[in-house]
């Protein structure tokens, strides 16, 4: 399997990840997702101060192949967005779990994290989907 999996985050079936830090979480998309999209050319992020809902569309990633909706893996208020993605969307391809974080939320319902997969479950899920 050629994809990278970060053990410190939890994953959604739609290939977003959330990394919990205290009562906040950082959100991005997985290495599998960036590979399937190929070269990312544009990322549309939510506005700081807006509220996102788990499972609902919150951002858009555009690659040379397609424009795909990004669904929020957790609910909460957006308290910061990664402005570096405006000028350098290629970070999504280069460092999906690090420099290419999308936004940070103040968690409104930490219990929702149970709806997400841990790294082993997600690895298995990706393998079954790739087949």
């Amino acid at each position: 399997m050629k994809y990278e999996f970060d053990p410190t985050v939890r994953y959604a079936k739609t290939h977003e990840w959330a990394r919990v830090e205290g009562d906040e979480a950082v959100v991005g998309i997985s290495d599998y997702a960036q590979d399937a999209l190929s070269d990312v050319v544009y990322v549309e992020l939510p506005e700081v101060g807006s509220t996102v809902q788990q499972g609902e569309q919150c951002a858009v990633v555009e690659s040379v192949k397609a424009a795909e909706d990004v669904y929020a893996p957790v609910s909460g208020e957006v308290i910061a967005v990664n402005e570096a993605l405006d000028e350098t969307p290629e970070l999504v391809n280069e460092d999906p779990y690090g420099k290419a974080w999308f936004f940070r939320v103040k968690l409104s319902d930490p219990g929702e994290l149970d709806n997400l997969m841990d790294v082993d479950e997600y690895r298995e899920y990706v393998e079954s989907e790739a087949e």
Partner: protein
Amino acid sequence: MTEPLIFEISSPGRVGASLPDLDVPEAEIPAEWVRDDLPLPEVAEVDVARHYVRLSQMNYAVDVGFYPLGSCTMKYNPKINEVATRLPGFAMVHPLQDPDTVQGAMALMYELQRYLAEIAGFAAVSLQPAAGAHGELTGVLIMRKYQQERGEAQRTKILVPDSAHGTNPASTAMSGLQVVEIPSDERGNVDLEALKAYLDDTVVGLMLTNPNTLGLFDEHLLEVTRLVHEAGGLVYADGANFNAILGICKPGEMGFDVMHYNLHKTFSTPHGGGGPGSGPVGVREDLAAYLPGPIVDRVVGEDGPGYVWKMPEHSIGRVKSFWGNFGVMVRAYTYIRMLGAEGLRATAENAVINANYLQARLKGTYPVPYGDRTCMHEFVAQGEIEGAPDVRALDICKRLMDYGFHPPTMYFPLIVHEALMIEPTETESRDTLDAFADAMLKIAEEARTNPELLHEAPHSTPVRRLDEVRAARHPVLRYRSRA
């Protein structure tokens, strides 16, 4: 590519026309309206002719070769359509002319409304919308208004299967309604259980592309339309794939309430390069009052029959200035009259058999996810070749250009990895289909033995592989002189 811009071949003082001496009084133009310089290219007629002929020779078009662009129905456009649309009575009329002076043009529109209604099994048709997605928006607005006027304003959702055209959710969002995506089952049909779970009194209706973007006819279609109707919803047909069922079955008889037609796909009018298209909308009897207008009506007065503009009673209003894209209507009318009922049916039959022939020839080499089913007018293969892990659909498409073919649609539909969506249309001979299949099989062999050949393709086109990523990340949006 070495052809300069026409501005770059400009030479001061060179002209392409000589004007006769002024034989009327010279008009006074207010000084503030007169400008000192007008930077237009200064060229002779021969410069213009050669420049544009050279550009046209770099282009690839359906008049040059095979164009299997899935979802786009790039059939050959018969030249008789062009002859008809250039007849002075059609080409030289003005949209503001008195209706009494354009009765012939209005008669053609009236007949076209009737033909389209008959072919798809609907009660009434409006020719106003300018293209397919515009027809979709029109259809969704009709559905919304119908629900509102019968006191069901709480209905705000449109269900869209994941195998639909991308324009369906876009049209829904544009109309202010909410999109709800419905998954496909393992045979590529609408997942009935998922559909049932979403059907309640918040649903305006379902938008269905049938055959869908996998080229598959939904095996539970009647069940799907029945379920939506039972929940008080309407069913919209995306007519982009109408070519597959023309003259064989009628959407209006399968439970569809509203449909748009793509005259520029199914009815052979040139498209690509920006159109113009035409996306008429047909509806069942009780929705006819909501159609956008004006539509053409036939009245019999004291002087005999005549044609008038009419705004339907509960119309959603105008969706286009004047009367729609009239030139496209003339072409579509001509196409229908040239083929007749039997010819239209043969069109669909040949489109389907051509697609199945290509699917059968390719599926041993390229994965075809739903290849155990008979496809309709198109099918979706995958650009994943055994023994060539680094080759993607993009490389295969670029290499096809070296063999003289336009690539198929790629990376759509989104539900298939490395999708290659192939639609040959009815206008291609078996020789052409075989030449394309041979090229595809040869490319698969090259992918295993010499993948670099694919990664660097195309090799023989006017421009080599473009840096699409850089173009998207750092677009240059205005002309910059090389001087």
